[in-house]
């Protein structure tokens, strides 16, 4: 236990305390001395950029949650059906979907920067053209750029949501479905009245894990849009990085980091309640 406590103290508690301390200063990366002040909070919280960033982050997170849950569930249901009917192909599909998840985030950004490119090698527009649709400016207009980072994030995260939901589906007893069938329930009815309620805890855990993963994402965004055009895809994590390492405002970045800390704390409380209500803790 001692090594764990040492790691936790050195690399988590102390840094978290320091971040909190810096947020009450005017520290800058360019000079060593600083003074304590509340001014940083005042200026960060009154900066309209913060609210733009929060809005972008909220859209990014919410859209990712919905799409990853739905897509993950659709693939998981198909895989579960294939399992029960002993149809081949599950492992292959799972391998391909999970490949998107295991690769480095930066490479995901590079893959999508190529696929969504305006140049003639952009796969998305080639497919659109083949379907008789016009060119879409995926990365060069603010609203499309936001949609693009959502697509890339969903491409990355769906695998994880699918794995959890597939595990959840496997744990639903077959008897429930058999009983429903005897009672004359349609497939859709048993999906709605058995599958969804049985999966509820896993869906909720998924929501929390997707939120955390998406909030902490910025590796994928750098090669894809770099946060632009303008600041259209500058999410909270990327903003924090930019404030510290591009604007050199250690204190300003610390305030944003404190906001990120508070969000993760709230999500942890939610996660813990969920696990407890499931008897897992």
């Amino acid at each position, binding site marked *: *236990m001692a*090594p*764990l406590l040492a*790691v*936790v103290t050195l*690399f*988590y508690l102390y*840094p*978290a305390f320091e*971040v909190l301390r*810096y947020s009450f200063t005017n520290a800058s*990366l360019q000079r060593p001395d600083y003074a304590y002040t509340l001014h940083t909070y005042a200026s960060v919280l009154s900066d309209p950029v913060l609210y733009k960033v929060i809005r972008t982050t909220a859209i990014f997170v919410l859209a990712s949650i919905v799409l990853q849950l739905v897509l993950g569930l659709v*693939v998981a249901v*198909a895989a579960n*059906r294939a399992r029960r009917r002993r*149809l081949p*192909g599950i492992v292959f*599909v799972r*391998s*391909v*979907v*999970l*490949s998107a998840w*295991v*690769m*480095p*985030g*930066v*490479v995901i950004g*590079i*893959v*999508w*920067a*190529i*696929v969504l490119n305006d*140049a*003639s*090698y952009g*796969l998305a527009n080639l*497919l659109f053209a083949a379907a008789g649709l016009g060119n879409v400016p995926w990365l060069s207009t603010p609203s499309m750029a936001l949609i693009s980072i959502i697509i890339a994030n969903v*491409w990355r995260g*769906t*695998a994880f949501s699918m*794995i*959890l939901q597939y595990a959840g589906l496997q744990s639903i007893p077959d008897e429930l479905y058999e009983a429903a069938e005897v009672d004359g329930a349609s497939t859709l009815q048993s999906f709605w009245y058995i599958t969804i309620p049985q999966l509820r805890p896993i869906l909720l*855990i998924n929501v929390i*894990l997707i939120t*955390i993963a998406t909030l902490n994402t910025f590796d994928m965004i750098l*090669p894809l849009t770099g946060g632009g055009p303008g600041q259209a895809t500058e999410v909270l994590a990327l903003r924090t990085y930019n404030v510290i390492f591009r604007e050199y405002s*250690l204190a300003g*970045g610390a305030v944003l*980091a404190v906001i*990120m*800390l508070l969000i*993760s704390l709230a999500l*942890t409380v939610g*996660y*813990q309640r969920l696990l407890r209500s499931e008897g*897992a*803790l």
Partner: protein
Amino acid sequence: MRSRKSQRRIGDALTYLVFALALVFFGGPLLWVLSLSIRTPQDVYITSLRLIPETPTLENYTEVLYTAQFTIYLTNSLKLAVAGSVGAMVVSAPAAYAFSRLSFRGNNALLIGVLALQMISPLVVIIPLYRYFARLNLLDSHLSTAMVYIAILVPLATWMLKGFFDGIPPDLDDAAMVDGCTRFGAFRRVTLPLILPGLTSVFVLTAILAWGEFIVPYILLSEPSLLPISIGILNFQGNYAETSTQVVAAGGVLAMLPAIATFVVLQRFIVRALTSGAIKG
């Protein structure tokens, strides 16, 4: 009423429709990047969906490996990933064992604390660490970077390993202790061999995560000869993107290949670790 048999056939068709769509969405971008990586510069700009170019070439790969330091980046990533996950196992395994076996005061609270750490963005932790490492002259060092990798992987590793320890009946180590083993002896001789598949799962998963780790090396390392692939490829894209997409694509393939290959070979372990970590707790 439609016969059961035809209903089943429709269900099977739908299952494979979902599989096919999933393969296109998740596999398509990967195939496309692979296709670009074996094209000559002329073939990149042809407006066509054909995957295998008329004159496939491996020249892009030789260019990436010989002129762009990719071999160094890949070696650095391997070093950091192995050091990070071995270190994380060494720190986590005893702690996870204690969480699973000993009921001490604050056990649950500590466990939830570990869960909370997992939710914290590495970005938050790295901000103050950057300043300290700068002061202690520990920037641009693989040793200090690997320490932070360990710290970042420890919460997840502890949490997942605890799940695996919970799956081994405590009677076994009690019996060993009755036979004269110390608690540590019981851990080493009885539990550790049984937990080996669990350790493998967690090792593989943490190594893959460490391979893709971005924020920590991005902030702590700047010397080109020390960079891991995740940073190397971002710089590479910045320098090359406009002129030679085929070379960037080859770099992307090289950066994702180790993670995907490891995953495909060992996916049984990874899928187990994922589900065990998130649901069972």
